[in-house]
């Protein structure tokens, strides 16, 4: 006798998630609503940042405490100078930009189902685990694509350095996972409240605040010039690992609680 293949069959949810992901991708490529809203927001804010910070990029600050007490040579003054706009704050602005871009477009994933009236069909044909995984995969793909396009432009416009490349790439990846998982569960909650965009931001704010704090800690560690290599490695593991674990935590909790959001 063949095993059950109903919507709630545990062995079936991966195939369902794949189906939903491909359906969303196909629908998105057809209408390009999320791509346009995320892309438009990202590139218009990128242009604004580039114009607004044109003067700031050239400003240098003098760290008085690095100057020697006795005779000051021009070389000493040059050595004590550093850019006023630090790499860590550039990273902070990049993620502020990506956060708003994500929040502008990712709410669409669940809201669209509510608006099109396809929620009931989706609820009947798929398990909550399948729906959550499919939507998460779609949102993460969209976010990775945006980050992949925006980050090189941003780095070129602001002169942001990558620092340690493996750590930088891990940080970007962990950031995308954290932001994508936050946006997915918040979009599901907001869609239940008849898809208010303002509500999406309001519900997401407490989670996003924690995420941004962890991300800025990791960015500060990435660009810090610590002389103690061992302590710096531990700090990197703590901060970047914290960002990864935040994403894992959010995905795990969402996977367990999504059933209640979806079926209520």
């Amino acid at each position, binding site marked *: 006798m063949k095993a059950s293949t109903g919507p709630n069959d545990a062995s079936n949810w991966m195939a369902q998630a794949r189906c939903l992901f491909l359906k969303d991708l196909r629908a998105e490529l057809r209408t390009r609503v999320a791509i346009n809203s995320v892309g438009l927001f990202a590139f218009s804010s990128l242009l604004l940042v580039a114009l607004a910070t044109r003067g700031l990029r050239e400003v240098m600050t003098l760290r008085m*405490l690095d100057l020697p*007490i006795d005779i000051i040579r021009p070389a000493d003054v040059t050595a004590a100078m550093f850019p006023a706009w630090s790499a860590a704050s550039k990273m902070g602005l990049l993620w502020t930009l990506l956060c708003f871009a994500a929040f502008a477009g990712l709410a669409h994933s669940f809201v669209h189902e509510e608006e099109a009236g396809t929620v009931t069909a989706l609820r009947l044909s798929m398990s909550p685990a399948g729906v959550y995984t499919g939507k998460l995969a779609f949102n993460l793909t969209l976010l990775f694509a945006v980050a992949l396009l925006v980050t090189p432009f941003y780095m070129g416009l602001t002169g942001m350095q990558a620092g340690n490349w493996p750590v930088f790439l891990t940080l970007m990846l962990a950031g995308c996972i954290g932001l994508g998982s936050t946006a997915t569960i918040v979009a599901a909650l907001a869609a239940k409240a008849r898809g208010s965009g303002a509500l999406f931001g309001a519900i997401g704010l407490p989670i996003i605040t924690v995420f941004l704090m*962890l991300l800025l*800690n990791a960015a500060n560690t990435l660009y810090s010039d610590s002389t103690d290599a061992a302590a710096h490695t531990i700090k990197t593991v703590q901060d970047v690992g*914290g960002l990864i*674990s*935040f994403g894992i*935590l959010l995905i*795990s*909790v969402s996977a367990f609680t999504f059933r209640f959001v979806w079926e209520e």
Partner: protein
Amino acid sequence: MKKAYFIGFLVISLALGFTLWAFSSSMSPFVDVKTARKSSGTVQLRGLIVKDEVHPAHWDTSSSAFRFWIMDKNNEICEVVYHGAKPDAFDAAKGLSASGSMTRDASGKEFFNSDSLSVQCPSKYDSYKVDYAKKPSGGQI
């Protein structure tokens, strides 16, 4: 199903623990001198600025730092070495909190190494404060 719940619970617990550990690095609690001595990370030492002739606040040219003394709630006195310029409101202020960690110099002398100060602004309403626990001594309207 029970196995899935067990694995899920384990993953959530581990991820929560690691996230809290990472998040704790961005927090610096307010402590007294005794606790600051035991802490390994960055803390905020809060106390009253000691302004007497034995403990003068001064700019130390050898270490390019501003040195002064503060007294915590347990009346324990500690020297603070602040790597920055003297704050404008320092002379008028009664108390402050210094962010940093407890260290020792080459001679073994203990001090609080700080890179950030929050000076408590003196309130212009202080002289009008009324001690409500105390009964008025009298007077006529």
